[in-house]
């Protein structure tokens, strides 16, 4: 049976999404994609430079990947919308990962501005994946605004601190009818596996791979960990059973 993830009508085979910032060379991007098996790759539009092919980060994303531009650097909904439209005009398709950061100490997302941008861009036909603080109420509003998935942070971007928001993410997994993709903060493959075991639909990793001593091997390790975590979830860990089981093997007979 296929266990593909479906976002915005696209079948996605790999549940590891890859970020492209922070690498010591863009040449490591295709190698990391290949080693990890990642299919969705995010690129900051601010770094894309079609005028300079050799240094153009987007040119290093292998064909066949879904290139998801992100709005890194946007400080409010208006800037976000502008950047998303620029990305679409540049030929990047309809996917967009929304990042709205209004404080530069921890780079925590601004859920309110993110929501406003999600609503506008979903209305324009974008497949919108908002990066957000894992707040249930805000996530429900993202659903209503037309988000295609929800991307809560595990801990602050680049912090490699792991799933510090575990309980809040667990609630999103239980309550939100969209794919929950844990984005930011995952520092180790074991933490990616943990998110997948909990029932996350996917994880997005950048810093932990890009700044590793050997990024390509680390990318492979993350690819394996995400697969393992997903398998464990499907196999039914105690935790997953407690929260996610749809059928009722013990009392189901009472419905007859």
């Amino acid at each position: 049976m296929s266990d593909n993830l479906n976002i915005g009508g696209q079948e996605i085979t790999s549940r590891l999404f890859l970020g492209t910032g922070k690498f010591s060379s863009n040449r490591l991007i295709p190698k990391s994609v290949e080693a990890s098996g990642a299919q969705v790759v995010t690129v900051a539009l601010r770094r894309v430079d079609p005028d300079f092919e050799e240094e153009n980060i987007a040119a290093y994303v292998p064909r066949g990947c879904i290139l998801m531009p992100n709005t890194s650097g946007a400080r409010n909904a208006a800037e976000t919308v502008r950047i998303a439209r620029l990305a679409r005009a540049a030929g990047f398709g309809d996917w967009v990962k929304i990042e709205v950061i209004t404080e530069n100490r921890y780079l925590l997302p601004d859920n309110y501005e993110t929501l406003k941008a999600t609503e506008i861009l979903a209305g324009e036909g974008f497949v919108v994946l908002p990066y957000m603080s894992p707040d249930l109420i805000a996530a429900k509003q993202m659903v209503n605004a037309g988000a295609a998935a929800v991307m809560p942070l595990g801990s602050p971007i680049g912090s490699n601190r792991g799933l510090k928001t575990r309980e809040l993410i667990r609630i999103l997994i239980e309550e939100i009818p969209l794919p929950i993709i844990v984005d930011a903060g995952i520092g180790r493959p074991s933490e990616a596996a943990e998110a997948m075991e909990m029932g996350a639909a996917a994880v997005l990793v950048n810093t932990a791979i890009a700044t590793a001593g050997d990024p390509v091997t680390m990318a492979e390790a993350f690819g394996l960990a995400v697969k393992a975590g997903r398998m464990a979830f499907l196999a039914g860990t105690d935790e997953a059973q407690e929260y996610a089981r749809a059928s009722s093997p013990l009392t189901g007979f009472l419905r007859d």
Partner: protein
Amino acid sequence: MSFYEELSKYYGFNFNSFFDNLTDEDIKKIITKNRLSALDYLALLSPRAEFFLEEMAGRAQRLTVQHFGRVIFLYTPIYLANYCVNQCVYCSFRARNKLERKKLTLPEVEHEAEAIAATGLKHILVLTGESRRHSPVSYIRQCAEVLKKRFTSISIEIYALEEAEYADLILAGVDGMTIYQEVYNEENYARLHPAGPKSNYRFRLDAPERACRAGMRTINVGALLGLGRWRTEAFFTGLHADYLQNRYPDVEVSISPPRIRPHLGGFQPEFEVGDKNLVQYMLAYRLFMPRGGITISTRERAELRNRLVKLGATKMSAGSCTAVGGRSNSESTAQFEISDERDVAEMAKMLYAQGYQPVYKDWQMA
């Protein structure tokens, strides 16, 4: 509220006694802290902390890679005009120095822009002397509009403006501003800036805040090292950055630690700032402001800049020229002598050799 109020709290503070009372244990403890207080930062700028540079460097490097990645952002300066009404005693362009004054015409700006754009850079820093007659804001705005066609990020390093003027330039496509207080010590400031509008200490000190209020995306502050005691100047620069980051959390705040270079007029800096001091400043700042940018210009020589890549630097200039129209006319007088003559391609090669990626473009909004 102004940063001046923060600064004033330290008037009368006995820095020497604070430094004298620090122990090795104090320094070691601070190096492992997640969030440093202002006084922790000051402690790392102390003579005592000089014994822990390697420990500080290890942490600083990890923090820099974690937050910025293995990358260095590149940019280059363009000097629009050297007309100046100020008398900064350490600057070639000061009003009383005799040199050929020049201002680029818009076609000349276009010409220089073309040459710079050919290097692949998308970020440019625009500089002028202070002359509202020769280089008014309207002229700088026109230049920005010309540059905008080839560059996706334009920063200014010009005389202090009013808030509405910053807003005007932002509309024209400017997204960043650099302004050095030169020296935070108010007495030294008065002595070194004897005449001209720049002699107004407060107006300059509050300029970054006015730019923040106008909506500037990135702000870079600094003290010109050599004009005051470096430990306190570094301290106040850090406090200034911290103040701006607290008050304007969505602004990307960075610092520069420029050291004074030989100028026309032969000004001799009163305060020595050695390589070791510069490095200590960068490391202390990195631990204090883990996400704060550190810009290193070609004032520093190539061998040192190569080392600073791994000591907290995040942004470097390349292919610099500090004369007006200097890319097409080698006769023009430079604002100061640069120490690293490498062009963009050579800088990129050095960075790759060190396992760092040169980033030519890091912003786009149009």
